[in-house]
C-alpha cells in the first residue's frame, strides 16, 4: 500500500515534467529530422508559462470548466494506473476525459472547434476498441485488471500479447495526436482547420490542455511499459527503453506522413483491433 501511495505522488508531481521534457525532445528531434536546429528542450514549459501570463479570452464561460474537467480526469486516469489500481477503470476515466474535451470544443460554438470536436469523436471511435482490447488482454493473461497484480507476473506479458502490443502502438499515433491521424487538433494544417478543437481556447485554458496532454502521454507510455514488466530489474529498464523507442518512432512517423482522411483513421483503428488484437485474444483464449 505504501509503495502505491509513493508511486501515485511521484506521478502527480513529476508526470508534467517528464511529459513536458518529452514534448521538448519531440520538437528538437522533429527539427533535426527537418534539417533545423529547433527550440531549447524547455520550450514547452516556456510556452505553458507564457500562456499563464496572457489575457484570458473566453467565448463561453462553461468551456473553461469542461477543460478543467478534462485535465482533472486525465490526472485521475494516470492516478489509478500508477497507484496500481484498476486498468479498466483507468481507461474508462480516460474516455470520460476525452468526452469533456469534446464537449468543450462543441460549447464554444465556433465552426472550426465544432468540426474539430466531430473529428475528435471519430478518433475516439477509432482507437477505443483497441484500447479496451489491451485491458482485456492483460486480464486474460494475468487474471486481473489490477495493475499491482499485473506487474507481479513472472512471464513478460509482451510474449503472449504481442498482437495486442502491435495494435496498441498502432493506435498510439491517434492518441498522441500525430500525423497521419492528427485530424482534430490539426498541428500541421492551419490553413484547413485553424487549430481545430483548440481554436477557441486561449491563455490559461490552452495551458491546461497542454498540461493534460503531458499527463496523458506519460500514462500511455506507462501502458507500453506495462507490457514488459515481469518483476525483475532488467525488465523495468527494458520497459522504459521500449516506451521511449515507441515515442521516437511516433515522432518519426509524424515527420514522414501527410495527414490522412478520417476514413483511413477509422479503417486503420478497427482493422488493427480486429486482426492483431482480436486474433491475439482468441489464441490466448484457447491456450
Amino acid at each position, binding site marked *: 500500500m505504501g509503495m502505491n501511495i509513493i508511486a501515485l505522488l511521484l506521478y502527480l508531481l513529476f508526470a508534467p515534467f517528464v511529459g513536458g521534457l518529452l514534448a521538448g525532445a519531440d520538437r528538437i528531434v522533429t527539427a533535426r529530422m527537418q534539417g533545423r*536546429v529547433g*527550440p531549447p528542450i524547455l520550450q514547452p514549459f*516556456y510556452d505553458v*508559462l507564457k500562456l499563464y*501570463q496572457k*489575457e484570458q*479570452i473566453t467565448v463561453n464561460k462553461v468551456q473553461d470548466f469542461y477543460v478543467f474537467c478534462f485535465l482533472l480526469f486525465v490526472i485521475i486516469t494516470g492516478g489509478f494506473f500508477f497507484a496500481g489500481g484498476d486498468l479498466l477503470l483507468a481507461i474508462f476515466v480516460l474516455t470520460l476525459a476525452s468526452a469533456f474535451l469534446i464537449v468543450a470544443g462543441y460549447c464554444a460554438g465556433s465552426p472550426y472547434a465544432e468540426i474539430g470536436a466531430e473529428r475528435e469523436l471519430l478518433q475516439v471511435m477509432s482507437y477505443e476498441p483497441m484500447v479496451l482490447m489491451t485491458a482485456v488482454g492483460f486480464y486474460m493473461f494475468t487474471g486481473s485488471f489490477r495493475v499491482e497484480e499485473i506487474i507481479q507476473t513472472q512471464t513478460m506479458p509482451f510474449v503472449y500479447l504481442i498482437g495486442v502490443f502491435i495494435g496498441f502502438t498502432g493506435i498510439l499515433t491517434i492518441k498522441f495526436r500525430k500525423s497521419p491521424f492528427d485530424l482534430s487538433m490539426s498541428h500541421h494544417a*492551419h490553413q484547413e482547420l485553424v*487549430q481545430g478543437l483548440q481554436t477557441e481556447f486561449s491563455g490559461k485554458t490552452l495551458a491546461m490542455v497542454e498540461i493534460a496532454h503531458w499527463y496523458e502521454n506519460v500514462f500511455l507510455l506507462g501502458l507500453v511499459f506495462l507490457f514488459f514488466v515481469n518483476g525483475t530489474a532488467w525488465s523495468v529498464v527494458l520497459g522504459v527503453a521500449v516506451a521511449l523507442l515507441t515515442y521516437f518512432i511516433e515522432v518519426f512517423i509524424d515527420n514522414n506522413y501527410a495527414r490522412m482522411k478520417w476514413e483511413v483513421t477509422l479503417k486503420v483503428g478497427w482493422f488493427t483491433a480486429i486482426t492483431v488484437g482480436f486474433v491475439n485474444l482468441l489464441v490466448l483464449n484457447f491456450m
Partner: protein
Amino acid sequence: MSFVTKSPWMIHYDGSSCNGCDIEVLACLTPMYDIERFGIKNTGNPKHADVFLLTGSVNEKNKPVIQQIYEQMPEPKIVIAVGICACDGGVFKECYNICGGADTVVPVDVYVPGCAARPEAIIDGVVKGLAILEEKRLKVKRKTEKALKKHYDEVYGQEHRPLIMEVVINGK
C-alpha cells in the same frame, strides 16, 4: 520572470501585396533561418498569437479583417509591419482602393522596411519587437493591479485593505 519573450507565437496576414514579403516571412521558418530557435511558432489562430506580422498594403476590403484579427489577439500583443507596402503603402499607395500602410488600421510597433524584406531583417524586427512585448506585458500587469487596488479600496476602504493586497501592490 517573463516567458512571453521566450515563446512568441506569430500569425501572419497578407494584405494586398505581391506576396513577396509573405514568402520571406515563411522563409524564416525554413532550415536556413529556423526561427523556431527562438521559440517562435507559426500559428494560424489569432487567439493563440502574440506577434502579428502584416505584409502588404491595406485596402478597403481587408481593413475589417485586419481589425478583427488584431482584436481577437489576447494582450500583450505586438504588430510588425513587414515590407515597404505594410509600412506606408509602397508602390500601391496611390491606387484607388488602398488606404495606406498597416498603421492606418492597427497600431504598429515595429516597421521592417525592404522590398521584399529580407528574412534577416524580419527576424531582427521580431527580436526588436520582443522588448516591446515585454514592456506591454508589464503595462497590462500594472493596469490590472491598479484596477484591483481601486476595487478593494472601494469595497473595504483604504485603512482596511486586506493584507494580501499589500503584498500584491507593494511587493512586500
